[in-house]
Protein backbone atom coordinates (compact mmCIF):
# COMPACT_ATOMS: atom_id res chain seq x y z
CA UNK A 1 0.00 0.00 0.00
CA UNK A 2 3.03 2.25 -0.36
CA UNK A 3 1.28 4.04 -3.24
CA UNK A 4 -1.09 5.69 -0.84
CA UNK A 5 1.69 7.50 0.96
CA UNK A 6 2.54 9.28 -2.27
CA UNK A 7 1.01 12.48 -3.56
CA UNK A 8 -2.10 11.96 -5.65
CA UNK A 9 -0.18 13.49 -8.56
CA UNK A 10 2.41 10.73 -8.27
CA UNK A 11 -0.10 7.89 -8.62
CA UNK A 12 -1.80 9.56 -11.56
CA UNK A 13 -1.91 7.59 -14.85
CA UNK A 14 -2.83 9.32 -18.07
CA UNK A 15 -6.34 8.40 -19.21
CA UNK A 16 -7.47 6.78 -15.95
CA UNK A 17 -10.79 8.05 -14.63
CA UNK A 18 -12.95 7.62 -11.57
CA UNK A 19 -16.22 8.42 -13.29
CA UNK A 20 -17.75 8.13 -16.77
CA UNK A 21 -19.50 11.25 -17.97
CA UNK A 22 -22.30 11.01 -20.56
CA UNK A 23 -21.76 12.37 -24.05
CA UNK A 24 -22.21 16.13 -24.07
CA UNK A 25 -25.53 17.15 -25.59
CA UNK A 26 -24.60 20.81 -26.08
CA UNK A 27 -22.43 22.29 -28.78
CA UNK A 28 -18.83 22.90 -27.78
CA UNK A 29 -17.59 26.46 -27.66
CA UNK A 30 -14.22 27.85 -28.49
CA UNK A 31 -12.74 29.19 -25.27
CA UNK A 32 -10.84 32.00 -26.96
CA UNK A 33 -14.14 33.33 -28.31
CA UNK A 34 -15.51 33.68 -24.78
CA UNK A 35 -12.46 34.62 -22.72
CA UNK A 36 -9.53 37.00 -23.27
CA UNK A 37 -6.54 35.09 -24.58
CA UNK A 38 -4.28 36.18 -21.73
CA UNK A 39 -6.57 34.40 -19.26
CA UNK A 40 -6.38 31.03 -21.01
CA UNK A 41 -3.93 28.32 -19.96
CA UNK A 42 -1.12 27.64 -22.34
CA UNK A 43 -0.36 24.20 -20.93
CA UNK A 44 -2.73 21.53 -19.57
CA UNK A 45 -3.46 21.72 -15.82
CA UNK A 46 -2.22 18.13 -15.36
CA UNK A 47 -4.91 17.27 -12.89
CA UNK A 48 -4.44 13.83 -11.30
CA UNK A 49 -6.10 10.96 -13.14
CA UNK A 50 -6.97 8.13 -10.75
CA UNK A 51 -9.67 5.51 -10.23
CA UNK A 52 -12.40 5.95 -7.63
CA UNK A 53 -10.78 3.32 -5.38
CA UNK A 54 -7.37 4.99 -5.67
CA UNK A 55 -9.00 8.27 -4.75
CA UNK A 56 -10.73 6.77 -1.70
CA UNK A 57 -7.56 5.04 -0.51
CA UNK A 58 -5.47 8.16 -1.06
CA UNK A 59 -7.68 10.41 1.07
CA UNK A 60 -8.29 7.71 3.68
CA UNK A 61 -4.51 7.32 4.04
CA UNK A 62 -4.19 11.10 4.33
CA UNK A 63 -6.87 11.18 7.06
CA UNK A 64 -4.92 8.54 9.01
CA UNK A 65 -1.95 10.88 9.09
CA UNK A 66 -3.97 13.40 11.08
CA UNK A 67 -3.37 13.53 14.80
CA UNK A 68 -6.10 14.67 17.13
CA UNK A 69 -7.53 13.99 20.54
CA UNK A 70 -9.48 11.09 19.01
CA UNK A 71 -6.11 9.46 18.19
CA UNK A 72 -4.19 10.07 21.36
CA UNK A 73 -2.91 12.29 24.16
CA UNK A 74 -2.49 15.92 23.13
CA UNK A 75 -1.13 17.95 26.08
CA UNK A 76 -0.67 21.22 24.16
CA UNK A 77 -0.45 23.84 26.91
CA UNK A 78 -2.91 26.77 26.85
CA UNK A 79 -4.77 25.09 23.98
CA UNK A 80 -7.04 22.80 26.05
CA UNK A 81 -7.09 19.91 23.60
CA UNK A 82 -9.91 18.05 25.31
CA UNK A 83 -12.18 15.38 23.95
CA UNK A 84 -15.10 16.60 21.79
CA UNK A 85 -18.16 14.55 22.86
CA UNK A 86 -19.91 13.04 19.84
CA UNK A 87 -23.35 14.04 21.10
CA UNK A 88 -22.33 17.60 20.14
CA UNK A 89 -22.06 16.45 16.54
CA UNK A 90 -25.48 14.80 16.65
CA UNK A 91 -27.11 18.01 17.88
CA UNK A 92 -25.28 20.27 15.42
CA UNK A 93 -26.50 18.00 12.58
CA UNK A 94 -30.18 18.12 13.55
CA UNK A 95 -32.09 19.26 10.47
CA UNK A 96 -33.65 22.18 12.32
CA UNK A 97 -30.13 23.53 12.89
CA UNK A 98 -28.15 22.34 9.89
CA UNK A 99 -30.68 23.08 7.11
CA UNK A 100 -31.74 26.61 8.04
CA UNK A 101 -30.58 29.77 6.30
CA UNK A 102 -29.23 32.90 8.03
CA UNK A 103 -31.65 35.08 6.05
CA UNK A 104 -34.76 33.20 7.16
CA UNK A 105 -37.26 35.42 9.02
CA UNK A 106 -36.76 35.20 12.79
CA UNK A 107 -40.22 33.72 13.31
CA UNK A 108 -39.25 30.65 11.23
CA UNK A 109 -36.05 29.87 13.22
CA UNK A 110 -37.22 30.36 16.77
CA UNK A 111 -35.56 27.13 17.95
CA UNK A 112 -32.15 28.21 16.67
CA UNK A 113 -32.54 31.68 18.15
CA UNK A 114 -33.58 30.14 21.48
CA UNK A 115 -30.37 28.09 21.46
CA UNK A 116 -28.29 31.21 20.78
CA UNK A 117 -30.11 33.23 23.41
CA UNK A 118 -29.75 30.54 26.07
CA UNK A 119 -26.08 30.06 25.19
CA UNK A 120 -25.56 33.80 25.69
CA UNK A 121 -27.23 33.49 29.10
CA UNK A 122 -25.19 30.42 30.06
CA UNK A 123 -21.89 32.01 29.08
CA UNK A 124 -22.83 35.19 30.94
CA UNK A 125 -23.44 33.12 34.09
CA UNK A 126 -20.21 31.12 33.65
CA UNK A 127 -18.14 34.28 33.13
CA UNK A 128 -19.96 36.51 35.62
CA UNK A 129 -20.76 39.07 32.93
CA UNK A 130 -24.05 40.85 32.29
CA UNK A 131 -24.35 40.23 28.54
CA UNK A 132 -22.59 38.21 25.84
CA UNK A 133 -22.19 38.43 22.06
CA UNK A 134 -21.63 35.18 20.18
CA UNK A 135 -20.45 36.83 16.96
CA UNK A 136 -16.62 36.64 17.12
CA UNK A 137 -15.39 33.54 15.34
CA UNK A 138 -12.15 32.97 17.25
CA UNK A 139 -10.32 33.97 20.40
CA UNK A 140 -8.25 36.63 18.67
CA UNK A 141 -11.33 38.13 17.04
CA UNK A 142 -12.94 38.11 20.48
CA UNK A 143 -9.93 40.04 21.81
CA UNK A 144 -10.21 42.59 19.02
CA UNK A 145 -13.96 42.91 19.59
CA UNK A 146 -13.43 43.41 23.32
CA UNK A 147 -10.77 46.04 22.73
CA UNK A 148 -12.96 47.91 20.24
CA UNK A 149 -15.69 47.91 22.88
CA UNK A 150 -13.17 49.37 25.36
CA UNK A 151 -12.05 51.97 22.82
CA UNK A 152 -15.60 53.08 22.06
CA UNK A 153 -16.48 53.13 25.77
CA UNK A 154 -13.59 55.48 26.53
CA UNK A 155 -14.35 57.65 23.50
CA UNK A 156 -17.98 57.91 24.60
CA UNK A 157 -16.61 59.21 27.90
CA UNK A 158 -14.59 61.82 26.00
CA UNK A 159 -11.25 60.00 26.39
CA UNK A 160 -8.81 58.76 23.77
CA UNK A 161 -6.79 56.34 25.85
CA UNK A 162 -3.98 54.85 23.78
CA UNK A 163 -2.29 52.16 25.90
CA UNK A 164 -3.09 48.52 26.58
CA UNK A 165 -1.05 46.76 29.26
CA UNK A 166 -0.03 43.14 28.68
CA UNK A 167 1.98 40.86 31.03
CA UNK A 168 5.16 39.31 29.64
CA UNK A 169 3.59 35.85 30.01
CA UNK A 170 0.58 36.78 27.84
CA UNK A 171 -0.47 34.96 24.71
CA UNK A 172 1.01 36.63 21.64
CA UNK A 173 -2.47 37.40 20.38
CA UNK A 174 -2.96 39.97 23.18
CA UNK A 175 -0.43 42.55 21.96
CA UNK A 176 -1.31 41.68 18.35
CA UNK A 177 -5.03 42.35 18.94
CA UNK A 178 -4.21 45.57 20.80
CA UNK A 179 -2.09 46.76 17.87
CA UNK A 180 -4.81 45.92 15.33
CA UNK A 181 -7.32 47.82 17.49
CA UNK A 182 -5.05 50.86 17.31
CA UNK A 183 -3.48 50.75 20.76
CA UNK A 184 0.14 50.85 21.88
CA UNK A 185 1.10 47.95 24.13
CA UNK A 186 3.05 48.21 27.37
CA UNK A 187 4.60 45.03 28.79
CA UNK A 188 4.23 44.27 32.50
CA UNK A 189 7.01 42.03 33.84
CA UNK A 190 6.35 38.94 35.95
CA UNK A 191 7.77 38.69 39.45
CA UNK A 192 9.93 35.85 40.78
CA UNK A 193 6.79 33.79 41.47
CA UNK A 194 5.64 33.97 37.85
CA UNK A 195 2.79 36.39 38.65
CA UNK A 196 2.11 39.98 37.58
CA UNK A 197 4.58 42.28 39.31
CA UNK A 198 2.11 44.49 41.13
CA UNK A 199 4.61 47.27 41.82
CA UNK A 200 5.65 47.36 38.16
CA UNK A 201 1.98 47.49 37.20
CA UNK A 202 1.34 50.44 39.49
CA UNK A 203 4.21 52.33 37.86
CA UNK A 204 2.90 51.72 34.35
CA UNK A 205 -0.82 52.34 34.86
CA UNK A 206 -1.84 55.92 34.11
CA UNK A 207 -4.61 58.09 32.70
CA UNK A 208 -3.73 56.84 29.21
CA UNK A 209 -4.37 53.19 30.09
CA UNK A 210 -7.35 51.84 28.16
CA UNK A 211 -7.17 48.29 29.51
CA UNK A 212 -5.06 45.58 31.08
CA UNK A 213 -5.32 42.21 29.31
CA UNK A 214 -4.85 39.31 31.67
CA UNK A 215 -5.11 35.54 31.51
CA UNK A 216 -6.01 33.97 34.85
CA UNK A 217 -4.68 31.44 35.57
CA UNK A 218 -1.78 32.71 33.52
CA UNK A 219 0.20 30.82 30.90
CA UNK A 220 2.46 29.37 33.60
CA UNK A 221 -0.66 27.72 35.02
CA UNK A 222 -0.52 29.94 38.10
CA UNK A 223 -3.49 31.78 39.56
CA UNK A 224 -2.98 35.54 39.82
CA UNK A 225 -3.78 35.71 43.52
CA UNK A 226 -3.47 39.51 43.56
CA UNK A 227 -6.22 39.82 40.98
CA UNK A 228 -8.53 41.89 43.19
CA UNK A 229 -5.79 44.43 43.89
CA UNK A 230 -4.76 44.38 40.22
CA UNK A 231 -8.36 45.21 39.27
CA UNK A 232 -8.45 48.05 41.79
CA UNK A 233 -5.22 49.56 40.43
CA UNK A 234 -6.52 49.50 36.84
CA UNK A 235 -10.01 50.73 37.72
CA UNK A 236 -8.72 53.59 39.87
CA UNK A 237 -6.88 54.88 36.81
CA UNK A 238 -10.08 54.63 34.77
CA UNK A 239 -8.91 51.60 32.76
CA UNK A 240 -10.80 48.40 32.03
CA UNK A 241 -9.79 44.84 32.85
CA UNK A 242 -9.86 42.37 29.97
CA UNK A 243 -10.00 38.60 30.64
CA UNK A 244 -8.36 36.34 28.07
CA UNK A 245 -10.42 33.16 28.47
CA UNK A 246 -7.81 30.81 27.03
CA UNK A 247 -7.31 29.22 30.44
CA UNK A 248 -10.93 29.26 31.61
CA UNK A 249 -10.87 25.47 31.86
CA UNK A 250 -9.30 25.91 35.30
CA UNK A 251 -12.08 27.98 36.86
CA UNK A 252 -15.44 26.68 35.64
CA UNK A 253 -17.93 26.79 38.49
CA UNK A 254 -15.17 27.70 40.96
CA UNK A 255 -15.04 31.43 40.33
CA UNK A 256 -15.79 33.85 37.50
CA UNK A 257 -13.89 36.67 35.81
CA UNK A 258 -16.75 38.92 36.95
CA UNK A 259 -16.00 38.12 40.60
CA UNK A 260 -12.33 38.87 40.00
CA UNK A 261 -13.18 42.36 38.74
CA UNK A 262 -12.94 41.91 34.98
CA UNK A 263 -15.08 44.10 32.71
CA UNK A 264 -14.65 42.28 29.40
CA UNK A 265 -14.20 38.54 28.83
CA UNK A 266 -13.68 36.39 25.81
CA UNK A 267 -14.16 32.64 25.99
CA UNK A 268 -12.78 30.11 23.54
CA UNK A 269 -15.58 27.66 22.85
CA UNK A 270 -13.14 25.48 20.92
CA UNK A 271 -10.98 25.15 24.03
CA UNK A 272 -13.12 25.21 27.14
CA UNK A 273 -16.41 24.05 25.68
CA UNK A 274 -15.26 21.11 23.54
CA UNK A 275 -16.00 22.31 20.04
CA UNK A 276 -13.53 20.93 17.47
CA UNK A 277 -10.16 22.56 17.64
CA UNK A 278 -7.16 22.97 15.43
CA UNK A 279 -6.69 22.91 11.71
CA UNK A 280 -7.83 26.46 11.25
CA UNK A 281 -11.36 26.46 12.59
CA UNK A 282 -14.15 27.27 12.55
CA UNK A 283 -13.96 28.42 16.14
CA UNK A 284 -15.92 30.79 18.31
CA UNK A 285 -14.78 33.51 20.69
CA UNK A 286 -17.86 34.97 22.41
CA UNK A 287 -17.34 38.18 24.35
CA UNK A 288 -19.05 39.06 27.63
CA UNK A 289 -19.20 42.51 29.20
CA UNK A 290 -20.42 44.23 32.34
CA UNK A 291 -23.61 46.28 32.14
CA UNK A 292 -22.03 49.66 31.41
CA UNK A 293 -20.43 48.19 28.25
CA UNK A 294 -23.58 46.50 26.90
CA UNK A 295 -24.48 49.40 24.54
CA UNK A 296 -21.19 48.87 22.70
CA UNK A 297 -21.68 45.14 21.95
CA UNK A 298 -21.86 44.14 18.27
CA UNK A 299 -25.22 44.09 16.52
CA UNK A 300 -27.49 42.43 15.74
CA UNK A 301 -28.16 41.22 19.27
CA UNK A 302 -30.54 38.39 20.09
CA UNK A 303 -33.15 39.39 22.60
CA UNK A 304 -36.30 37.92 24.05
CA UNK A 305 -39.56 39.80 23.46
CA UNK A 306 -42.27 38.04 25.45
CA UNK A 307 -42.17 34.45 24.23
CA UNK A 308 -40.36 35.32 21.01
CA UNK A 309 -36.68 35.65 20.16
CA UNK A 310 -35.83 38.64 17.97
CA UNK A 311 -32.85 40.32 16.31
CA UNK A 312 -32.09 43.81 17.60
CA UNK A 313 -30.14 46.06 15.22
CA UNK A 314 -31.04 49.27 16.96
CA UNK A 315 -28.08 50.02 19.22
CA UNK A 316 -26.59 53.39 18.20
CA UNK A 317 -23.43 53.02 20.31
CA UNK A 318 -22.66 49.51 19.03
CA UNK A 319 -19.26 48.87 17.46
CA UNK A 320 -21.25 47.26 14.62
CA UNK A 321 -21.18 43.81 13.13
CA UNK A 322 -17.92 41.87 13.52
CA UNK A 323 -18.88 38.67 11.71
CA UNK A 324 -21.14 37.86 8.81
CA UNK A 325 -24.54 36.56 9.86
CA UNK A 326 -24.32 35.62 13.53
CA UNK A 327 -21.15 33.71 14.35
CA UNK A 328 -20.35 30.09 13.55
CA UNK A 329 -23.71 28.58 14.38
CA UNK A 330 -22.66 24.91 14.24
CA UNK A 331 -19.90 25.55 16.74
CA UNK A 332 -22.29 27.44 19.01
CA UNK A 333 -24.73 24.50 18.89
CA UNK A 334 -21.94 22.16 19.97
CA UNK A 335 -20.90 24.36 22.91
CA UNK A 336 -24.53 24.72 24.00
CA UNK A 337 -24.91 20.94 23.97
CA UNK A 338 -21.76 20.49 26.04
CA UNK A 339 -22.82 23.03 28.66
CA UNK A 340 -26.33 21.58 28.94
CA UNK A 341 -25.16 17.95 29.11
CA UNK A 342 -22.55 18.76 31.76
CA UNK A 343 -24.65 21.09 33.91
CA UNK A 344 -23.18 23.36 36.60
CA UNK A 345 -21.88 20.50 38.75
CA UNK A 346 -20.37 18.74 35.75
CA UNK A 347 -18.53 21.88 34.67
CA UNK A 348 -17.17 22.31 38.19
CA UNK A 349 -15.86 18.73 38.06
CA UNK A 350 -14.23 19.52 34.71
CA UNK A 351 -12.06 22.19 36.30
CA UNK A 352 -11.33 20.15 39.41
CA UNK A 353 -10.20 17.17 37.33
CA UNK A 354 -8.19 19.34 34.93
CA UNK A 355 -6.32 20.88 37.87
CA UNK A 356 -5.83 17.50 39.57
CA UNK A 357 -4.43 15.96 36.38
CA UNK A 358 -2.01 18.82 35.84
CA UNK A 359 -0.70 18.62 39.39
CA UNK A 360 -0.38 14.81 39.21
CA UNK A 361 1.75 15.05 36.06
CA UNK A 362 3.75 17.94 37.49
CA UNK A 363 4.66 15.93 40.60
CA UNK A 364 5.64 12.89 38.53
CA UNK A 365 7.93 14.94 36.28
CA UNK A 366 9.42 17.63 38.50
CA UNK A 367 12.37 15.54 39.68
CA UNK A 368 13.33 14.69 36.09
CA UNK A 369 12.96 18.15 34.57
CA UNK A 370 13.58 21.58 36.00
CA UNK A 371 10.36 22.95 37.52
CA UNK A 372 10.83 26.74 37.58
CA UNK A 373 7.63 27.35 39.57
CA UNK A 374 7.43 24.34 41.87
CA UNK A 375 4.08 25.07 43.44
CA UNK A 376 0.49 23.96 43.02
CA UNK A 377 -0.65 24.83 39.53
CA UNK A 378 -4.05 25.11 37.95
CA UNK A 379 -4.93 23.30 34.71
CA UNK A 380 -1.42 23.42 33.21
CA UNK A 381 2.19 23.73 34.26
CA UNK A 382 5.56 24.55 32.81
CA UNK A 383 8.81 22.64 32.92
CA UNK A 384 12.18 23.80 31.70
CA UNK A 385 14.58 21.74 29.60
CA UNK A 386 17.51 23.69 31.08
CA UNK A 387 18.90 20.56 32.79
CA UNK A 388 18.88 18.71 29.46
CA UNK A 389 20.39 21.73 27.68
CA UNK A 390 23.56 21.26 29.75
CA UNK A 391 23.78 17.79 28.22
CA UNK A 392 23.51 19.16 24.68
CA UNK A 393 19.84 18.27 24.15
CA UNK A 394 17.08 20.84 23.79
CA UNK A 395 13.39 21.02 24.40
CA UNK A 396 12.78 20.78 20.66
CA UNK A 397 14.53 17.40 20.63
CA UNK A 398 12.42 16.22 23.58
CA UNK A 399 9.28 17.26 21.73
CA UNK A 400 10.31 15.37 18.62
CA UNK A 401 11.20 12.27 20.65
CA UNK A 402 7.68 12.31 22.14
CA UNK A 403 6.37 11.69 18.61
CA UNK A 404 8.04 8.25 18.75
CA UNK A 405 5.87 7.38 21.74
CA UNK A 406 2.71 8.39 19.87
CA UNK A 407 2.04 11.69 21.67
CA UNK A 408 1.48 15.16 20.38
CA UNK A 409 4.17 17.21 22.13
CA UNK A 410 3.32 19.90 24.66
CA UNK A 411 3.57 23.57 23.74
CA UNK A 412 7.27 24.42 23.56
CA UNK A 413 9.27 27.62 23.95
CA UNK A 414 6.25 29.44 25.34
CA UNK A 415 5.79 31.39 27.54
CA UNK A 416 8.89 33.31 26.59
CA UNK A 417 10.01 33.98 30.16
CA UNK A 418 10.91 30.31 30.80
CA UNK A 419 14.14 28.93 29.32
CA UNK A 420 13.62 25.88 27.06
CA UNK A 421 9.99 25.80 28.14
CA UNK A 422 7.59 22.84 27.98
CA UNK A 423 4.02 23.84 28.76
CA UNK A 424 1.86 20.84 29.58
CA UNK A 425 -1.94 20.80 29.79
CA UNK A 426 -3.33 17.28 30.21
CA UNK A 427 -7.05 18.29 30.40
CA UNK A 428 -9.73 16.55 32.44
CA UNK A 429 -10.71 13.94 29.90
CA UNK A 430 -7.64 11.68 30.18
CA UNK A 431 -7.37 8.58 32.37
CA UNK A 432 -4.74 8.00 35.05
CA UNK A 433 -3.30 5.26 32.82
CA UNK A 434 -2.77 7.76 30.00
CA UNK A 435 -1.19 10.31 32.35
CA UNK A 436 1.11 7.63 33.75
CA UNK A 437 2.09 6.39 30.31
CA UNK A 438 2.94 9.94 29.22
CA UNK A 439 4.93 10.55 32.41
CA UNK A 440 6.80 7.25 31.87
CA UNK A 441 7.71 8.36 28.34
CA UNK A 442 8.90 11.78 29.53
CA UNK A 443 11.03 10.11 32.24
CA UNK A 444 12.46 7.66 29.71
CA UNK A 445 13.42 10.58 27.47
CA UNK A 446 15.08 12.35 30.40
CA UNK A 447 17.08 9.17 31.05
CA UNK A 448 17.98 8.84 27.36
CA UNK A 449 19.32 12.40 27.36
CA UNK A 450 21.79 11.33 30.05
CA UNK A 451 22.65 7.88 28.74
CA UNK A 452 22.15 7.94 24.95
CA UNK A 453 21.48 11.49 23.79
CA UNK A 454 21.77 10.65 20.09
CA UNK A 455 18.49 8.74 20.22
CA UNK A 456 16.82 11.97 21.31
CA UNK A 457 18.83 14.22 19.00
CA UNK A 458 17.97 12.00 15.99
CA UNK A 459 14.25 11.75 16.82
CA UNK A 460 11.65 11.17 15.51
CA UNK A 461 12.36 7.61 14.42
CA UNK A 462 8.91 6.11 13.88
CA UNK A 463 7.03 8.79 11.95
CA UNK A 464 6.34 8.64 8.21
CA UNK A 465 8.74 11.53 7.74
CA UNK A 466 11.81 11.71 9.96
CA UNK A 467 13.73 14.70 11.19
CA UNK A 468 13.02 17.55 8.82
CA UNK A 469 15.62 20.06 7.69
CA UNK A 470 13.85 23.14 9.03
CA UNK A 471 16.71 25.42 8.05
CA UNK A 472 16.54 24.37 4.43
CA UNK A 473 12.74 24.51 4.49
CA UNK A 474 12.90 28.09 5.76
CA UNK A 475 15.59 29.22 3.35
CA UNK A 476 14.59 27.28 0.25
CA UNK A 477 10.91 26.45 0.61
CA UNK A 478 9.40 24.21 -2.04
CA UNK A 479 5.76 25.20 -2.08
CA UNK A 480 4.68 23.66 -5.36
CA UNK A 481 4.64 20.11 -6.64
CA UNK A 482 6.92 19.62 -9.60
CA UNK A 483 6.58 16.49 -11.66
CA UNK A 484 9.82 14.54 -11.66
CA UNK A 485 11.07 13.62 -15.10
Amino acid sequence: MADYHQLIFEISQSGRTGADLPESDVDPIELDEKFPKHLLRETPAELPEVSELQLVRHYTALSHKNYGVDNGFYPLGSCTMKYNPKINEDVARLEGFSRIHPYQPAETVQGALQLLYELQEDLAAISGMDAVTLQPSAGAQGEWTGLMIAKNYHQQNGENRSKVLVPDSAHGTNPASAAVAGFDTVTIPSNENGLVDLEALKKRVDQDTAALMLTNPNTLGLFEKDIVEIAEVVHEAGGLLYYDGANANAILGKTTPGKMGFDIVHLNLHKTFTTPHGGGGPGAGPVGVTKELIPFLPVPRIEKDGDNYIWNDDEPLSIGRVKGYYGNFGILARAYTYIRTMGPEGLRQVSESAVLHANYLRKRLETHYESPYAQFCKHEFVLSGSKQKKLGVRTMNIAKRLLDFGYHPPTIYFPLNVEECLMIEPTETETKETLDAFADSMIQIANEVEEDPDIVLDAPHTTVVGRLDETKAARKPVLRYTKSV
Partner: protein
Amino acid sequence: MIHITKEAQQKLSSIEWQDGVLPRVDANVTGGCGLTINYLFIFDQARKNDTIYHSHGVSIRVDPFTKRYLEGNPPTVDYSDTDGFQVINEVEFDSC
Protein backbone atom coordinates in the same frame (compact mmCIF):
# COMPACT_ATOMS: atom_id res chain seq x y z
CA MET B 1 32.03 25.62 9.96
CA ILE B 2 32.36 29.00 11.70
CA HIS B 3 33.72 32.18 10.12
CA ILE B 4 35.23 34.85 12.36
CA THR B 5 35.74 38.41 11.18
CA LYS B 6 39.04 40.16 11.79
CA GLU B 7 37.38 42.42 14.37
CA ALA B 8 36.04 39.42 16.29
CA GLN B 9 39.44 37.67 16.13
CA GLN B 10 41.17 40.72 17.56
CA LYS B 11 38.68 41.05 20.40
CA LEU B 12 38.79 37.33 21.24
CA SER B 13 42.59 37.30 21.31
CA SER B 14 42.54 40.12 23.87
CA ILE B 15 40.33 38.24 26.35
CA GLU B 16 41.83 36.49 29.38
CA TRP B 17 39.97 33.20 29.70
CA GLN B 18 38.88 31.89 33.09
CA ASP B 19 39.25 28.17 33.84
CA GLY B 20 36.94 26.06 31.70
CA VAL B 21 35.27 28.99 30.01
CA LEU B 22 35.28 29.19 26.22
CA PRO B 23 33.22 31.05 23.65
CA ARG B 24 30.21 29.25 22.24
CA VAL B 25 27.93 29.68 19.24
CA ASP B 26 24.56 28.67 20.65
CA ALA B 27 21.27 28.16 18.83
CA ASN B 28 18.60 29.90 20.82
CA VAL B 29 15.01 28.93 20.14
CA THR B 30 12.20 31.34 20.92
CA GLY B 31 8.58 31.40 20.02
CA GLY B 32 5.77 29.00 20.70
CA CYS B 33 3.76 28.58 17.58
CA GLY B 34 6.04 30.19 15.05
CA LEU B 35 9.57 29.35 16.19
CA THR B 36 12.64 31.45 15.59
CA ILE B 37 16.18 30.26 15.96
CA ASN B 38 18.82 32.85 16.36
CA TYR B 39 22.42 32.27 17.25
CA LEU B 40 24.00 33.70 20.36
CA PHE B 41 27.69 34.14 21.03
CA ILE B 42 28.19 33.41 24.71
CA PHE B 43 30.94 32.39 27.09
CA ASP B 44 30.25 29.40 29.31
CA GLN B 45 31.37 26.03 30.63
CA ALA B 46 31.43 22.84 28.57
CA ARG B 47 28.26 20.88 27.86
CA LYS B 48 28.22 17.15 27.34
CA ASN B 49 29.02 16.12 23.74
CA ASP B 50 30.23 19.58 22.69
CA THR B 51 32.19 19.91 19.47
CA ILE B 52 35.10 22.35 19.55
CA TYR B 53 35.93 24.27 16.37
CA HIS B 54 39.30 25.92 15.98
CA SER B 55 39.27 28.98 13.81
CA HIS B 56 42.02 31.57 13.47
CA GLY B 57 43.56 30.51 16.77
CA VAL B 58 40.26 30.64 18.62
CA SER B 59 38.41 27.64 20.08
CA ILE B 60 34.62 27.84 19.87
CA ARG B 61 32.19 25.34 21.38
CA VAL B 62 29.02 24.15 19.71
CA ASP B 63 26.55 21.72 21.30
CA PRO B 64 24.97 18.86 19.31
CA PHE B 65 21.67 20.68 18.86
CA THR B 66 23.33 23.79 17.46
CA LYS B 67 25.70 21.79 15.31
CA ARG B 68 22.83 20.29 13.33
CA TYR B 69 21.48 23.71 12.46
CA LEU B 70 24.88 25.00 11.42
CA GLU B 71 25.52 22.17 8.96
CA GLY B 72 25.37 23.72 5.52
CA ASN B 73 24.78 27.18 7.01
CA PRO B 74 28.10 28.34 8.45
CA PRO B 75 27.62 31.43 10.61
CA THR B 76 29.88 34.44 10.85
CA VAL B 77 30.95 35.82 14.22
CA ASP B 78 31.45 39.56 14.12
CA TYR B 79 32.36 42.15 16.76
CA SER B 80 31.83 45.86 17.09
CA ASP B 81 32.30 48.16 20.06
CA THR B 82 28.66 49.23 19.85
CA ASP B 83 26.93 45.85 19.40
CA GLY B 84 29.48 43.48 20.94
CA PHE B 85 29.71 39.96 19.48
CA GLN B 86 27.07 39.02 16.96
CA VAL B 87 26.42 35.83 15.04
CA ILE B 88 25.12 36.54 11.56
CA ASN B 89 22.82 33.68 10.60
CA GLU B 90 19.17 33.57 11.55
CA VAL B 91 16.50 31.06 10.80
CA GLU B 92 12.76 31.44 11.18
CA PHE B 93 10.29 28.68 10.60
CA ASP B 94 6.71 28.04 11.47
CA SER B 95 5.92 24.94 13.50
CA CYS B 96 2.15 25.43 13.48
